[in-house]
């Protein structure tokens, strides 16, 4: 753990000013359930950053707090500051945020089931006002990145496979010409081969289009292979952060998230007691 630099203000140290900075936010649902207890993180311009953690750790809540979709779920950011591209997000609506270049791909894809793939992609361009020709160009570009979507363009999104839905959701987000995409659990319910394909496309979009990504994932192995930086979230707190390589080498991450143990603990009971002793210092 010594080699991992702990920086509480969430500066990742890559690039210049971060495109997104989240500073010590607290989120309360229904005015009683405290879900995030002071989360800070930063995404450098053009970077891929990952939030890792188990179910219920607060990954989705963090993303929704950023994209301002919390309000429609009775959640409220009660403390802290979120800045996207130099502007505070708290008083903007989700649609303003999309036009400013920050778009979320929600957990579970959320394609419009009764719309065709083509129409789904078009809805992504809703906030754009720069003419049909530009939108058509981007549509062609999305079909270049996702050739499978071109094949299925006439199909209703509800009837295509899970992988194709995920591609549709990412393609739809790309149609708004984002500077940054908040990607929530892209691997959910997909075959390993498809997950590989999706992450490969994320990498391509990042390199070719300069889109920054903040990815919430449970698939730690996959996320750390593609991200440059990672934050580990446990019950509403960031317990560890560092560059992807450092995290991959970290003994605790190996033990708890990658399922690799180099010691000779063989029974589950040992793991549990080990974990109890080794409470994260947060």
């Amino acid at each position: 753990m010594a080699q991992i630099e702990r920086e509480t203000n969430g500066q990742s140290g890559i690039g210049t000013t971060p495109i997104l900075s989240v500073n010590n936010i607290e989120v309360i649902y229904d005015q009683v359930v405290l879900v995030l207890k002071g989360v800070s993180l930063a995404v450098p311009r053009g970077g891929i950053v990952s939030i890792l953690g188990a179910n219920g750790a607060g990954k989705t809540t963090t993303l929704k707090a950023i994209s301002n979709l919390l309000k429609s779920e009775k959640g409220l950011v009660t403390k802290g500051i979120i800045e996207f591209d130099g502007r505070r997000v708290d008083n903007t609506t989700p649609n303003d945020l999309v036009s400013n270049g920050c778009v979320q791909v929600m957990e579970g894809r959320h394609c419009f089931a009764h719309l065709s793939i083509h129409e789904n992609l078009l809805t992504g361009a809703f906030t754009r006002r720069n003419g049909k020709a530009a939108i058509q160009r981007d549509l062609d570009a999305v079909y270049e990145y996702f050739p499978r979507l071109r094949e299925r363009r006439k199909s209703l999104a509800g009837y295509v496979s899970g992988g194709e839905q995920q591609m549709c959701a990412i393609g739809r987000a790309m149609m708004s010409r984002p500077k940054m995409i908040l990607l929530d659990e892209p691997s959910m319910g997909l075959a390993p081969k498809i997950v590989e394909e999706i992450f490969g496309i994320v990498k391509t979009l990042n390199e070719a289009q300069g889109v920054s990504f903040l990815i919430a994932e449970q698939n730690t192995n996959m996320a750390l292979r593609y991200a440059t930086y990672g934050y580990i979230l446990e019950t509403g707190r960031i317990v560890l952060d560092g560059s992807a390589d450092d995290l991959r080498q970290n003994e605790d991450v190996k033990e708890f998230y990658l399922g690799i143990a180099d010691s000779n603990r063989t029974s589950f009971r040992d793991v549990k007691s080990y974990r109890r002793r080794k409470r994260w210092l947060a």
Partner: protein
Amino acid sequence: MGFFIEVLIGGLLSGVLYSLVALGFVVIFKASGVLNFAQGSMVLLAGLAFVRAQAFLGETFPFWISVAGGLAFAVAIMVIVAWLVEKFVLTRLINQSSLSLFMATIGLAFVIDELSQIAFGSEVYAVKIGIPREPIIVLTGLFDGGVLLNSVDLWAAIIAACLVLILVVFFQKTGTGLALRAVADDHAAAQSVGIPIPWTWLIIWSVAGLIALAAAVLWGTKVGIQYSIVFLAMKALPVLILGGFTSIPGAIVGGLLIGAGEKLAEVFIGSMIGGGIEYWFAYVVALIFLMIWPQGLFGERLIERI
């Protein structure tokens, strides 16, 4: 045979008016999943606004200006109502269950009923928009004596057909229509791609208001604008159950089937059991449909992946 055709066509044409009212329900239900109980009240309000404005303008201006002015005034009123509903009812009930929203529209129905009568009066007002009232006799070559048609019904059918065409083009071909269909499918996802939900409510309630205006003018031409027009909305419910709550073609076909069905039943079955079945025939059909085909003829089947 000539008599049968005459009853059938008469029924179909009166069914067009049911379709119009049902359409108002469908557009709101499609976009927000709310059954708008106030649709009948909106018909009353639109009708009263039109009739009174037209009468007022008719005193000083020529006939066609008074009609156009009346329509413009009623359109403005319906858009203002849509805006008020969005601001003071729907936005306050964001994320509440659709049952709460339904209850809110019941309350809204009473408010609109009473306010519109306070503002525009509560008598029976005749609608005169220049539609000829003489019956038309067609197909004299085919049947002995021809087929008698009510010309008001015929005009209503033509206007309704145009309206449906406009709506279909609006929903299927325009960007706004696409956004509205997206919202109907998945509120959360629509928000995540940047479609502002309150804006879609304003649009959809305005569209429902315009449909209410069309229904009011056409029904008003037949029976006059009066409070009882509110109960028209009740006739739209079996139409919706038959055609499906989410389908524009469903509302049209459902209306036509109910209209034709109840007239034919009245004439050919009613005579056997003493008559008067026109009033409950639609509800019995709806009940049977609920048992065997609950999503209706054109209703959206839920897409579920396994």
